[in-house]
């Protein structure tokens, strides 16, 4: 930086340490006699193009971080978290049945979904609201997003395995089925 004269340095220090924007009179109360306005204008030039700018708001002056630096002041930290069982089931139901209303999701799951569950899926960018169903109450419907397909490596929703594929893969929860057979279907074979 070009060296600042002592008067400008004093103005600079006072503005830096101030707890609010300062008027020229307010600055003068600290630094005493001198060309405060001239010093401010020189400082504004000095700081133009730096990470800190001297700016004027009405008749008050303040230092602030340069506007294009704002994104550095917020740091986002990624935290990888696993989806809850409720969230992944809800997502699966939406993917297989979209567009689907909240009530339909609950009917399919057989359990209510808590408020945060859909929020989490929307926050993850996998689910979005998609219009209303034209039935009484006009409930909102939900569908998956392109981001959903990307994340799960799917070309389209048609790539999702069908129910017969799931059965063949043993994913229809054989343990639960076995229990049901024992309880209900003893005398004869099922299906």
């Amino acid at each position, binding site marked *: 930086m070009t060296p600042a004269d002592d008067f400008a340095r004093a103005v600079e220090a006072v503005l830096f340490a*101030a707890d609010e924007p300062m008027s020229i009179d307010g600055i003068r109360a600290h630094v005493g006699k001198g060309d405060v306005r001239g010093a401010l204008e020189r400082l504004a030039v000095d700081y133009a193009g730096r990470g800190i700018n001297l700016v004027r708001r009405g008749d008050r002056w303040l230092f602030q971080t340069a506007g294009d630096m704002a994104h550095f*002041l917020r740091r986002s930290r990624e935290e990888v978290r696993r989806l809850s069982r409720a969230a*992944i089931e809800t997502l699966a139901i939406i993917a297989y049945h979209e567009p689907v209303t909240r009530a339909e999701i609950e009917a399919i799951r057989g359990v209510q979904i808590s408020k945060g569950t859909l929020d989490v899926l929307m926050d993850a960018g996998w689910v979005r609201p998609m219009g209303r169903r034209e039935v009484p109450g006009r409930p909102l419907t939900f569908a998956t997003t392109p981001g959903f397909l990307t994340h799960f490596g799917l070309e389209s929703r048609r790539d999702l395995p069908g129910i017969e594929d799931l059965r063949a893969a043993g994913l229809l929860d054989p343990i639960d089925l076995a229990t049901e057979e024992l309880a209900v279907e003893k005398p004869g074979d099922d299906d």
Partner: protein
Amino acid sequence: MIGEQLTLDLDGWEGPLDLLLNLARAQKVDLKEISILALVEQYLAYVERARTLQLELAADYLVMAAWLAYLKSALLLPRDPEIEPSPEELALRLQLRLERLSAMREAGARLMARDRLGRDVFRRDAPEGLRTARKASWSAGIFDLISAYGRVSARTRPVMHVVQDREVMTLDAAIARIAALIGSTIDWTMIETFLPEGAGEALRRSALASSFLAALELARQGKVELHQRGPFEPLYLRVPA
């Protein structure tokens, strides 16, 4: 313990070493050159004066006085080579202690005189502050997704139970059949004899169960007698004698 006990000096002393240091400073600026013997004399005189003024001295001042009196006599008396450390060594240690305390006192003063943050130099009073936003990145794979769907389907898909049509022998039919056939038998006859011939395995099991119940019913009515040697032995029927 420290504090107002020695009010000869308005400031008060921070303990006997502090008093010694002040006496030493009055003697010479450079502590390396002070006379320990003279210092001892001064300290003892000081303590004596406090006594005559009936000031209450803290124990550690008296302890120091006793030790200095010992040091003084050791320095004045002919040297005893048996005694370790030597009085000169003790005097040197005392001098070093005073130097160290003096150095620390001076260092403290220099620290306090520095440009101190919040007194002489300042940070911004209203910084924008930095924020850390936590962004959740959710992890789930395709297998999680489809197995979840399988789980939901299995849990809620209506299960349909189909009972196959089968040949059975009802209890009524079995009672009629045994009642009809028992009349022509005289001796004990195994229950299997009464089952329909040529029946398939399923019908045979049904007929056996029904016939057993029929036999029990007929026995209750007094129309047959039952006999079995033991558990799981063949079951025999006959007309009551």
